[in-house]
């Protein structure tokens, strides 16, 4: 969260709603450790990352749904084989994310 703090504060000053997605657990090989954080503003602007770029697109969709419904959710991404457009990690690991509105 440290790296994206200034984005979070700017968005809040501008009155934008924000969802936070944090890596909470990791199985096997994965690029980012628990605590890696990505933030998504209600207009789709993004700061930070939770993987090496493999799942960020899907996380934006989940985060916007979280802002829409104002609930929170656990989301996991596992191994993706070579099927076109399948969302997942190519490195063979599984990451578990917690996505929530920044309303606390």
């Amino acid at each position, binding site marked *: *969260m*440290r790296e994206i*703090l200034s984005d*979070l*504060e700017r968005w*809040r*000053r*501008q*009155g*934008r*709603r*924000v969802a936070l997605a*944090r890596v*909470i*657990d990791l199985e096997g*090989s*994965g*690029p980012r*450790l*628990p*605590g890696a954080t990505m933030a998504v503003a*209600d207009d789709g602007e993004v700061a930070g990352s939770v993987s090496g770029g493999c799942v960020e697109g899907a996380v934006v969709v989940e985060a916007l749904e979280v802002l829409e419904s104002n609930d*929170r959710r*656990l989301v996991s991404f596992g191994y993706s084989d070579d099927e076109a457009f399948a969302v997942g990690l190519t490195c063979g690991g599984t990451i*578990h994310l*917690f996505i*929530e509105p*920044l*309303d*606390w």
Partner: protein
Amino acid sequence: MDATPESGTATPIFDAVASLLREQSAFALATVVEGPGAGAKLLVRPEGTMGTLGDANLDRVVERDALGELAAGRSGVRNYGEHGEAREDHVRVFIESFAQPPRMLIFGAVDFTASLVRVAKVLGYRVTVCDAREVFATRQRFPLADEVVVDWPNRLLDQVGADLGQRDAVCVLTHDNKFDVPAIVSALATGVGYIGVMGSRRTHENRLVRLREAGVDDAGIARLRSPLGIDIGARTPEETAISIVAEIIALRTGRSAQALSASSGPIHD
């Protein structure tokens, strides 16, 4: 259109998190990620807590565990009963540790210093530049440094040495025995994880003699990375900075610093 801008919403925990991050203080943030009250938060510091996970007993147990995780610099999920009971998994709590950034003390305000400050900041170090020569140790020359101290390195170490640990680094770039030797002797008296000393092979040999004269034993000499850095053929100050921080990372992880393409086995531990 959203009629209630979020700037009007109170976010007391986030505001506290933001100011603790700015102050570079240590804290942990516990969040219920599954179970009753998902999303509830407890901010934990050695000085006390803020917020609640919805149950006073759960708060107490998580506070204790979070302080342990913070001391170890770990983040992860733990399971509890509804009132904090062990060996139950009614509530899953993610404890995220925000340890203080590691420190890097750079002795010697030279050209190599400016590059090393830049690279160390990228890696998240809190960086102090120290040199006894007032004309060189200026804020203007090292705008990214967290502190620029005009003093003898060994005197700075007398003040802050007790706080240095395994994650911290001391880089001696002065190449002047008058400053280097007392700085190295003082650094060896601390628990700092990395002590790197710049200099040519010849400077290094000469310095070894001086260090022996100053009473440094074999164990002390073996702790020094001198000349500092890994051999990537670095020539410029920027390349040298990369070579130095690569050595610091490899020392911490116990890896060999060879090319991944020349080895096999897992990339991440």
